[in-house]
């Protein structure tokens, strides 16, 4: 039961073969048993979960169920959920209980999904390993000495270990796709503006986008059907008709043109990952797709540009955490400046402080033009590279991460090495494009590898179609980590 796709769970709930309460208890039991070794959750609330499960059962009984009614899920702990601690993996918000719901949380509540807990994450979504969490690192279910990736590491670990059937995440530079790749799960970051950012604690506003992690492309489509849609409370939310992301899943791939950026297949990519990704691309070929080499000439600039823009926005976004109205305030201080200094020095971890410092620097008088403005110009070039590439192809395929999951602690002393984890994902965020990752094999140490599929703006349905057809022909996504049954 715990391994069933969302559609099968929904069918059993509708047919009253299982109640939401039973299903919720099942997953709560798995969390109780397995999460102590994984630390995928920051908060689990049985009472709240069971109450919404019972409400979902009433709805099911009344025949008013929607696709996800009664299905347990987890939210990354930066989605504000009314009455829930919303910590962002930070000491700064360790005791912050949100008085309101994020748009995404509202959407899942409205759909009748059952929120069982808030997933671990890198502090304020800054990190690629989940090691930057004030609540300790989440662990990779495939090898608990390794990282699950990040920043949506808790969501990925929870889905990989089948602690929930699906979870939300956010992706600012690869924070859904990279952990999905590292944990053998499927993850999608939709087009910028497809999912409302209202109530999603901001890291880098022009790059942040909510998305989902699940076991399959089909599950991701069902999650997006709930999450995506216009919200007038987010001025960057794009007003367009509601769409069914599952509508094209069954389409054959014949005639599909898959672009392979030559800059993705270089010495930076480890051989084991390259082998899996190449095999996956060959599989797409067998399914009727043709491949074409494309070029993203400014690819090498994506990471440096990102590490100007994202910290710049973050330095401003995180200014509100000043200890005045909510969040951590130092217990003793001499004056106002001292209160700010102490509260923020105590409340924020090292990586967050590093990015605030970098961001403050690049926005400073005299440096703004050389860094921030220049980065914005290069950002436009990166976006244009994709526009050019999509003249010759329908989707772009490649790796989601340069190597398999690394051991906890291996990169913590070298931030730049950590930043290079997002080599293949970051340019997608800079261009505002949608990207997904689905399992496509196992590399060194028997650790999962993900295939990244990038689409044009609002072409999620086609990307999901590609991923679904791939999953119909392969069974990588059905493999489960050892020791979770």
């Amino acid at each position, binding site marked *: 039961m715990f391994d069933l796709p969302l559609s099968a769970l929904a069918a059993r709930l509708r047919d009253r073969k299982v109640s939401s309460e039973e299903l919720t208890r099942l997953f709560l039991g798995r969390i109780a048993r397995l999460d102590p070794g994984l630390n995928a959750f920051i908060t689990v609330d049985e009472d709240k979960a069971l109450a919404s499960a019972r409400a979902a059962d009433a709805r099911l009984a009344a025949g008013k169920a929607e696709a996800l009614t009664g299905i347990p899920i987890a939210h990354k702990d930066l989605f504000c959920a009314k009455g829930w601690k919303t910590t962002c993996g930070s000491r700064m918000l360790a005791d912050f209980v949100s008085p309101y719901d994020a748009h995404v949380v509202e959407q899942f509540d409205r759909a009748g999904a059952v929120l069982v807990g808030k997933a671990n994450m890198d502090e304020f979504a800054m990190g690629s390993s989940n090691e930057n969490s004030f609540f300790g690192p989440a662990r990779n279910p495939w090898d608990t000495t390794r990282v699950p990736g990040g920043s949506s590491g808790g969501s990925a670990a929870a889905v990989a270990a089948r602690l929930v059937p699906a979870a939300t995440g956010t992706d600012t530079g690869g924070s859904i796709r990279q952990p999905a790749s590292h944990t053998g799960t499927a993850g999608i970051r939709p087009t910028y503006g497809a999912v409302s950012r209202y109530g*999603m*604690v901001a890291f880098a506003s022009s790059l942040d986008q909510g998305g989902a992690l699940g076991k399959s492309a089909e599950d991701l489509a069902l999650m997006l059907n709930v999450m995506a849609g216009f919200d007038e409370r987010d001025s960057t939310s794009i007003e367009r008709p509601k769409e069914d992301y599952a509508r094209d899943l069954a389409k054959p791939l014949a005639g599909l043109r898959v672009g392979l950026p030559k800059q993705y297949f270089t010495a930076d990519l480890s051989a084991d990952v390259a082998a899996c990704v190449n095999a996956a691309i060959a599989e797409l070929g067998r399914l009727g797709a043709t491949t074409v080499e494309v070029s993203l000439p400014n690819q090498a600039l994506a990471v440096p540009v990102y590490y100007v823009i994202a910290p710049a926005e973050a330095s401003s976004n995180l200014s509100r955490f000043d200890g005045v*109205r909510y969040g951590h305030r130092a217990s003793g201080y001499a004056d106002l400046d001292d209160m700010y200094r102490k509260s923020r020095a105590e409340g924020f971890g090292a990586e967050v402080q590093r990015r605030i410092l970098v961001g403050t620097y690049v926005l400073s008088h005299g440096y703004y033009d050389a860094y921030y403005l220049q980065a914005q110009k290069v950002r436009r070039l990166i976006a244009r590279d994709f526009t050019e590439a999509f003249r010759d192809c329908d989707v772009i395929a490649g790796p989601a991460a340069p190597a398999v999951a690394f051991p906890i602690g291996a990169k913590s002393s070298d931030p730049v090495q950590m930043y290079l984890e997002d080599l293949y994902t970051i340019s997608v965020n800079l261009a505002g494009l949608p990207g997904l990752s689905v399992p496509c094999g196992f590399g060194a140490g028997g650790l999962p590898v993900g295939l990244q599929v990038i689409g044009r703006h609002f072409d999620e349905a086609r990307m999901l179609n590609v991923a679904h057809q791939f999953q119909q022909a392969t069974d990588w996504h059905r493999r489960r980590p050892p020791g979770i049954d």
Partner: protein
Amino acid sequence: MVWEIVIGLETHAQLSTVSKIFSGASTAFGAAPNTQASAVDIALPGVLPVLNKAAVERAIRFGLAVGGRIAPRSVFARKNYFYPDLPKGYQISQFELPVVVGGEVLVAVDGAEKRVRLTRAHLEEDAGKSLHEDFHGMSGIDLNRAGTPLLEIVTEPDMRSAREAVAYAKTLHALVRWIGICDGNMQEGSFRCDANVSVRPAGSQTLGTRCEIKNLNSFRFLEKAIEFEARRQVELIEDGGKVRQETRLWDPQKGETRAMRSKEDAHDYRYFPDPDLLPLEIAPEWIESVRAALPELPAAMRARFAADHGLPEADATTLTSSKALATYYEQVVRGVGGEPKACASWVLGELSALLNRLEVEADASPVGPAALAGLVQRVLDGTVSGKTAKDVFESMAAGEGAADAIIEKRGLRQISDAGAIEAIVDQVLAANAKLVDDYRAGKEKAFNALVGQVMKASQGKANPAQANAILKARLG
């Protein structure tokens, strides 16, 4: 040495929207602390700003009223600094691309017209308030004001005296109220000025080092602060010193400005475009629909009153100092059916005195424009004398009814019948032989005394002009 003062003003006009610029919370003044602060205003984690179109519409109105250019695309930027009453740690403002560029305000100063050029006007949000009393060594924060929409109106350094600066500020104050974008309440901080002041030797073309005086919330303070600051700078330079660029605060108790922070400790605000808000795009159609709804502007109305109504410049200026007064005046003229000079004289005289006494605007006058027109007509057609009419006006103000009713009830109708006046004159002449003798002996004053007797005998109702003429004829 003769010195010239150079002044530029930055004015914050609070826009009269029902809700805040980026949230749905109310902008009403005076509510209990923090009761009008939404999740957005207190900057909870995850909240986002959504631009209030009504604030933009008011900015467009202003831009059109001053003949500025409405930017088809302007950008909201974040101004970053830490302060407890600034909940986000940044203020959303406009920096490189403001919504209104250029424009000018024509100001009447000492009978001449002065042109003050505007640099720009931009939209921004207000901060909250820090309360430093009543909290036993701690500070209280009230975020009701946080997010209130402001239009910051910046002039070129075009003013050359405190009088000019005040005249500009008063004209601008009247204008923003006229076009209905700001209530102009200076006590509540709805309209406040910062003054940039520098001095230079007369005839010099280069600007001196300026100081900015913050938060001048009355015209009197504005005038005094500029005068003080200019004097301070001149004395400093004449004593061999140099003006330091700095921000200064006006201390109304001591009547002086004092240094707040120097240029060196000025904040680096790290402005950058706010990624939570799309660039503000204003379509030409929007601008045109705002233009179509714009009322006749005070400058145009002033010119019309002078040219078409034949009013002196000063009267035209006073009548157009507020839209309520100008509207009132026009309604009186309409009610009377012309005679603008007589109408203006009543509006600027008795009515204005009444309004001042009651401290109300013309639109709240206890004597409405139609009622006043009724009275003015009775003066013009000779039913009552001007002097009697003033008493009638007071009775109308006291709520005793319309002019005609009061005149009838009290029998105040003027006696214009020649025969009746002649009879009274004859009586008076018979009873005052001494005065008649005095007059004939060349004492002009005696004539006035006789007129007084005639008026007294007629209980003030004799037509004064007729009484004069008849008296003169009889004595002649």
